[in-house]
């Protein structure tokens, strides 16, 4: 193999590892990133050869080492692109998808994901109760069930039946109250998750990685 081939191969290898570290980015953005880094490597390498002394292999090795690993570089681009996309969306499903990916990239993401799952879960449960009330009026809702001399408060989605003596605490109010609580909780979770993403991006002008 000639020296020039070997140099070219090192560059191509680095760039294809970088490309592989950019999944989920739109094709044109990923290509743009790879071409920008190719331009950097080409120019830096040739200028350090002409500056003197170094052979082309040593020059390309030094250039690539100064850039850091392509996987780390890809991770920095990915975190950015991901949070940018998620920040621009309002749908709980897209936010959750973004948070799942963020959770894989950092601890902060993991905790935001947990909180959001919790919020969306209860938002969905309250909404579901409101929707089930007209179908199963005898069992969906908030019930007070006698237990010996005591009472138990039971929240029921409408599956199965309520034990005898149970008292429907909200009656038909279950529908507006359930819808309002479910909707509010869903909107609140979305707003808090987006706010945390924005704070995280602002605070860490550079995410984990290098200085």
């Amino acid at each position, binding site marked *: 193999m000639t020296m020039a081939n070997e140099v070219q191969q090192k560059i191509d290898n680095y760039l294809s590892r970088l490309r592989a570290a950019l999944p989920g980015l739109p094709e044109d953005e990923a290509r743009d*990133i790879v071409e920008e880094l190719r*331009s*950097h490597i080409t120019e830096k390498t040739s200028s350090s050869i002409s500056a003197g002394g170094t052979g082309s292999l040593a020059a390309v090795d030094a250039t690539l080492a*100064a*850039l850091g690993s392509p996987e780390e570089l890809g991770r920095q681009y990915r975190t950015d*692109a991901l949070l940018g996309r998620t920040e621009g969306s309002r749908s709980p499903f897209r936010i959750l998808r973004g948070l799942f990916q963020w959770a894989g990239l950092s601890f902060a993401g993991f905790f935001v994901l947990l909180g959001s799952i919790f919020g969306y879960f209860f938002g969905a449960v309250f909404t579901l109760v409101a929707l089930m009330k007209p179908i199963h009026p005898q069992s969906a809702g908030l019930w007070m069930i006698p237990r010996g001399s005591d009472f138990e408060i039971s929240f029921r989605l409408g599956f199965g039946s309520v034990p005898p003596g149970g008292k429907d605490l909200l009656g038909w109010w279950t529908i507006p109250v359930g819808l309002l609580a479910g909707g509010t909780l869903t909107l609140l979770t979305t707003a808090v998750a987006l706010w945390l993403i924005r704070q995280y991006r602002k605070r*860490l002008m550079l995410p984990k990685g290098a200085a």
Partner: protein
Amino acid sequence: MKERETRDLEPGEKWEVQLRKGCLELAILAALWDGKRYGLEILRRLERDSDLIVSEGTVYPLLSRLKAMELVRSEWVESEGGHPRKYYSLTTAGKHRAIEMSAIWTRFSASMSRLLAPLAKGK
């Protein structure tokens, strides 16, 4: 992950890394103040005038973020050497941001200097 890497560093070094990170955005905006530059030019400028750069790779994702925030714009230009270069320049919002950040920096560093003056004499 960075947390794990920095844990091996001395507390003083770790703080210095955080400090450099925090300044890099302003440094890049400042490097574009007097006209458009491409990535390697920005890097050379920062290396010449500052010791902010530890890993060269970091500058590129940061440029892409500044672009997403619409503080800079970019264009590909063919060089005389034949290979294309991606040039960055400040947008109006980027200029405002740079001015704003530099005012905060100046105020902050002046007050830190006043506060630290006795430490320098004590040595």
